[in-house]
């Protein structure tokens, strides 16, 4: 492991930094060498990418905070328009060194204004001789703002003529960002996924105070052994670890096993982990419900998750409408006559043909169909006579709002609307029963 070394910063701070960012030492030292000393100009823009929860945001935040570099940290999702984003940067910049003065209102509509105000802010805060870092988290949102925002941020150093570095954090690669008009290429940096060893180290790091670190590490070891195959997301693993730990400790609390008795503990936890395995990622039952469940020591079968309530109660005609829509979506038009007419002449179809057709249609997905066809099929599948009342029509539109049907084409097309059936075969089966 490379120890962090940098002439500009005291060794104690670096040591603390290293303890705070486990398994990311190489990236941090790389960043440090790019940043250089406080007053040195660095690369104008840096682009950091990596998979979900590979520590991008965390590393940047701890790095800038521990070294006490002047910085602005903005989430692009939160500030969804360019105006909000720019104003937020300016406000944070004003607060960044002198926290006593309340932020005055800034109005900043265009990037031009921003550059001007930014210069002012830097001079007023006495930051000329330091590098100011602007970190834009979830930078993929920038692409949806005005076209000039992203290129302008990339060469902010040049535009403002100040010592500033823009750091973009994103989950997608730089190639997807590059605007068609071309722009300044940032320095890209990749954060790789944590390996199992890394995960073990990170997860074991925050053990609860009442238990020894070894004990918790053993628990994490078991947990990773079960879940690593299906889930490598650090956040999800943390969640699972927090959920199941109390169960793991139970024998120890009851005094049946000592902390060293790993085998016994494993026997105790195994069935619970298996159960939890079924709901990885889904969060079907909330954590509080899960805790309650474990306290009661009941079995999770009683408490049904979200997917257990999949059945939907529908009014009588809505059911038929949905079935008719499904038939219209998955059957080709030419078979309508043969399926739904009482006197349809000879039956020439072979079984093989029909089967072949069906599978391919299901693979192709639903096709749009006009309203008339839907109603015609409805009339033929409902036994009794159905009057085309306003209620039937309003039911169609309410099915659309429930997202069971979807409207194809424009909303305002009044004559000849076309629909698509969006529910699965299983759903239809459940309804048709």
């Amino acid at each position, binding site marked *: 492991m490379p120890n962090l070394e940098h002439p500009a910063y005291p060794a104690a701070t670096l040591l603390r930094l290293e303890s705070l960012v486990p398994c990311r030492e190489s990236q941090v030292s790389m960043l440090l060498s790019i940043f250089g000393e406080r007053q040195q100009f660095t690369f104008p823009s840096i682009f950091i990418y990596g998979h979900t929860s590979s520590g991008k945001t965390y590393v940047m935040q701890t790095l800038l905070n521990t070294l006490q570099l002047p910085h602005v940290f903005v989430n692009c999702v939160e500030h969804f328009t360019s105006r909000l984003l720019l104003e937020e940067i300016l406000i944070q910049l004003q607060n960044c060194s002198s926290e006593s003065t309340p932020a005055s209102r800034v109005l900043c509509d265009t990037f031009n204004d921003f550059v001007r105000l930014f210069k002012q802010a830097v001079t007023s805060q006495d930051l000329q001789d330091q590098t100011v870092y602007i970190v834009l988290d979830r930078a993929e949102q920038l692409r949806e703002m005005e076209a000039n925002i992203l290129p302008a941020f990339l060469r902010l150093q040049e535009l403002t003529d100040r010592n500033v570095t823009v750091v973009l954090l994103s989950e997608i690669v730089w190639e997807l960002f590059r605007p068609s008009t071309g722009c300044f290429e940032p320095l890209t940096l990749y954060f790789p996924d944590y390996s199992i060893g890394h995960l073990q180290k990170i997860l074991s790091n925050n053990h609860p105070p009442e238990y020894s670190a070894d004990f918790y590490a053993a628990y994490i070891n078991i947990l990773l052994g079960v879940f690593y195959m299906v889930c490598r997301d650090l956040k999800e693993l943390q969640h699972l670890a927090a959920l199941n730990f109390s169960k793991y400790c139970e024998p120890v609390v009851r005094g049946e096993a000592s902390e060293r008795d790993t085998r016994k503990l494993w026997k105790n936890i195994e069935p619970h982990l298996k159960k939890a395995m079924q709901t990885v*990622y889904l969060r079907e039952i*909330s954590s509080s419900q899960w805790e309650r469940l474990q306290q009661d020591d009941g079995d999770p079968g009683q408490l049904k998750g979200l*997917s257990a*309530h999949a059945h939907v109660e529908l*009014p009588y005609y*809505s059911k038929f409408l949905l079935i008719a829509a499904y038939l219209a979506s998955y059957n080709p038009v030419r078979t309508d006559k043969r399926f739904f007419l009482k006197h349809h002449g000879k039956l020439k179809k072979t079984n093989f043909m029909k089967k072949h057709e069906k599978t391919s249609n299901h693979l192709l997905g639903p096709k749009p169909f006009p309203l008339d066809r839907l109603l015609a099929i409805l009339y033929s599948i409902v036994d009794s006579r159905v009057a085309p009342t306003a209620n039937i029509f*309003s039911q169609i539109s309410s099915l659309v709002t429930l*997202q069971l049907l979807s409207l194809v084409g424009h909303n305002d097309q009044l004559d000849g609307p076309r629909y698509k059936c969006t529910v699965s075969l299983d759903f239809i089966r459940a309804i048709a029963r």
Partner: protein
Amino acid sequence: MNKQFFDNLVSFLRRSHCEFREKATEWTCRTKSREIPTAALLLGVNVTDHDLTFKSLSEVIQNNITPYVASLQAKDCPAIKNLMQKLMGQLMNCCVDVDSSDEEDCAQVSQNRIRCSITSLISWYENITKKTDSETPSRKRTSSRHLQFPPVVVIFKDMESFTTKVLQDFIVISSQHIHELPIILIFGIATSPMIIHSLLPHSISSLLCIELFQSLSCKEHLSTIIDKLLLTTQFAFKLSEKVLQVLINIFLYHDFSVQNFIKGFQLCIVEHFYSQPLSVLCCQLSEAKKRVNSLSHSQCENIRRLPSFRRYVESQESEKQIALLTSDNFLKEAVQKLLEDLHVYHENYVPVLRCLHVFTSSLPKYPLGKQIRELHCACLESRVWETEDYESSLQLARMLNKSDLVTMLQKCVEIFVSSSGKDFDKVVEKLKDFLAQFQKLEGVCQEQEESISSQKELQKKTDLYHLQKTLLELKESRRSKKMTKFEMLRFEVVDFIDSLVRNYLVPADHKTLHEIMYFNTASAVREHLNAAPRIALHTALNNPYCYLKNQASKSDGGSISNKAPDVCIAYKLHLECGRLINLVDWLEAFSTVVTAVEGPNGDAAVSDQVDDVIHARFIRAVSELELLGFIKPSKQKTDHVARLTWGGC
């Protein structure tokens, strides 16, 4: 009186959410780090009812938990920007409601509206909480009602219709600031909770701490409403079988909407009081008696004209008949008595119906229906004891086992005791007597079992041949054996219930003066509630007399009269065509029809060339049809239009 009904219903709806409310309060207190506590409400597909539900829900939350409630609808929030705007607008308005005296606050609100971001929301929240903190000594009331840091509740009324991006962004933003701004989300879900997974990816849904709440199914709502409104003696107004059937059918077949059911019910009330002149008497008994005394002569005549009253008169002796038909005072007395009868009938009807329901609802296959409303309909329709279903259910009831029978009897006793009817004392006594006998039977049964077992011991000792013989004997004896005491008693009980039914569950149409209380015109209700626009349009165009009431346009069968409006003529002609209509042919046919009357006058030679006026009339008629959506211009053939409808509905 209508108001009374409505109040009843609203309070009912509120009560049904009481359960949820309790859950919500205890659970809002706890919040997890970074996870936004979320409630997913499964509300069923009856979207029309949701508004009322959410309204009462937010009221309840405002009263009990927090003053900061915002409810968002998908149509207001096409983008995250609009969502934030809406949210801030609602939250800040409701804060103004709390302390409206602050002029400064209002100014702040308008200023803040310019910058709609989460930061301003947070600063607003900090301000508010700080203010309430400093004001707590002066205002004990608010602090005692709400928590110290009241959470902000955001209700998404129709989760399905929100675009995924807006929801995701909003959740990400609010989870970032959950520590500064305790937010709670409530999702209203109409279909199934799977929608959460299909709308939100894992990275988002892991930020939520979802708990599921299921509201009562709408069918249960309906049963409660029927229970509360129809099966009581509290309200004089009743629905007849057909009307009730229409309302229930609309509910079950079409929309599952309790609110629409209520509206239908209200319509029935209005229609009844509007169309039936004798509905003045449809009120509480004491009030009705007073009103009978003040009836005018013409109103008395109205009563005499009622079919049920005529039947009653005919069954009386001749002197009495004359008195009833001539003397108003005598009539009034009689009517008072009859009304009282009717009231007593209602009082008895309900408990007996419930009692019968207790019996029939536990039978296999439910010959008389599972729900009490089905039973109610059956009883209103005809004499229930004459139907086959009733026969079969009695048969089944005779085969019930003892424990079921006893529990049922106990339930019946409870029903009768709680009911206000006067002549049920005897019934209760009788039922209790039955119960006592069952108790006694238990002892007897045990003795019998003992004797049987001794018989069996005897059998063991005999050889095979003897065994066969004894078995045969046993079989015969069993066939001829008299019923056990238990069976006898069971028969008695069933017969007793049967007699109760025959006595009290007479259909209402057989009662005199039922027209006053019962609303009977199902066709009117169906017309009003189950509108059929296409059919209405067809009749209007096909038979204009129906709406215009113009003698000239009265059509005589299939032929097309030229007196009808031009649209009607064009419509009728177009019905005879195929999918594509040639405009020239159509015009010719049109002009022939229009000029039919002038034809004999002898302008036959001129009619080759179509008159300009007729041409103009035709064009206008065609464009009107196009506007109505019957035809549209077609690109397949020139001079043709395409029909958009098929068949004459």
